[in-house]
């Protein structure tokens, strides 16, 4: 199969032969099904690649005002996030940095709008993973020294922390019964983190899954 540009940072790990691919214009292809056992894995512990979503970043003391002028509603607290009605999200990293993800048109608008004083565009080329399943907490406990129950208690929070030795941004989506953790890391650490997380997931009865299997 020939893949058009661009590609997920962990593209090489997804080339399994069994994967069913999704391809949209100008987005990295994504895996809708990893293999036939996706539902079983997802129930226990699934790791899916979400890197294909369009994404933009901006930081600096002028970022808040600049984004507001673009008509976006912003998270009011530092280290919190808001979903967009169309499924995308905006996260406030620390106090003056934002990550916008999901809607291609919105992302393109942000990337094409000229920056203003105190506004510093950030090219986001993250590896993005979604974790789900009944044993997801065990995976988190094996890789991260932060109690993620605080996220379930307050799902508007964003956590910037370290997982298996890599800096990550984490939030919890989904619901209390089926939480889905989403995490972002530098794309160049993506393969390492994917291999580490799916390796542990496999020990726990799960593994890599396609996006269709996410709850």
């Amino acid at each position, binding site marked *: 199969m020939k893949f058009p540009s661009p590609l997920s940072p962990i593209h090489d790990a997804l080339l399994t032969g069994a994967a069913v691919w999704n391809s949209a214009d100008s987005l990295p292809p994504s895996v809708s099904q990893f293999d036939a056992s996706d539902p079983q894995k997802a129930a226990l512990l699934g790791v899916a690649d979400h890197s294909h979503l369009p994404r933009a970043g901006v930081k600096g003391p002028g970022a808040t005002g600049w984004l507001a002028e673009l008509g976006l509603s912003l998270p009011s607290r530092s*280290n919190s996030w808001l979903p967009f009605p169309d499924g995308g999200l905006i996260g406030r990293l*620390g106090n003056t940095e934002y990550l916008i993800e999901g809607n291609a048109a919105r992302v393109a608008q942000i990337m094409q709008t000229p920056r203003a004083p105190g506004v510093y565009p950030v090219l986001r080329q993250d590896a993005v993973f979604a974790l789900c399943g009944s044993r997801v907490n065990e995976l988190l406990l094996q890789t991260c020294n*932060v109690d993620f129950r605080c996220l379930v208690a307050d799902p508007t929070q964003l*956590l*910037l*922390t370290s997982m298996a030795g890599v*800096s*990550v941004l984490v939030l919890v989506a989904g619901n209390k019964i089926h939480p889905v953790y989403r995490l972002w890391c530098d794309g160049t650490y993506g393969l390492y983190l994917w291999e580490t997380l799916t390796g542990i997931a496999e020990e726990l009865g799960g593994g890599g899954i396609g996006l269709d299997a996410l709850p």
Partner: protein
Amino acid sequence: MKIMTCPFNGPRPVSEFFYWGEIRPMPDPATCSDESWADYIFNRNGAPGVKQEWWCHIASNTWFIAERNTEKDLVLRTYLFEEEL
């Protein structure tokens, strides 16, 4: 593991942080003597006590100041550099 409190990210294990060292005010390079400049460059306030130190929360690249007792390893307070100005 020691807990360090990042002003933005809250209490976290100290392994999430990078330690730089004590804040040392730089003498004016234009007016100070060679000797006091060398003192600034090399010498340290080595005795234990409460010190103001630079720390960085790595995942968020947040630099802040920790007031820490270097004998008991007690963090008395942490704050952003700007807050001290």
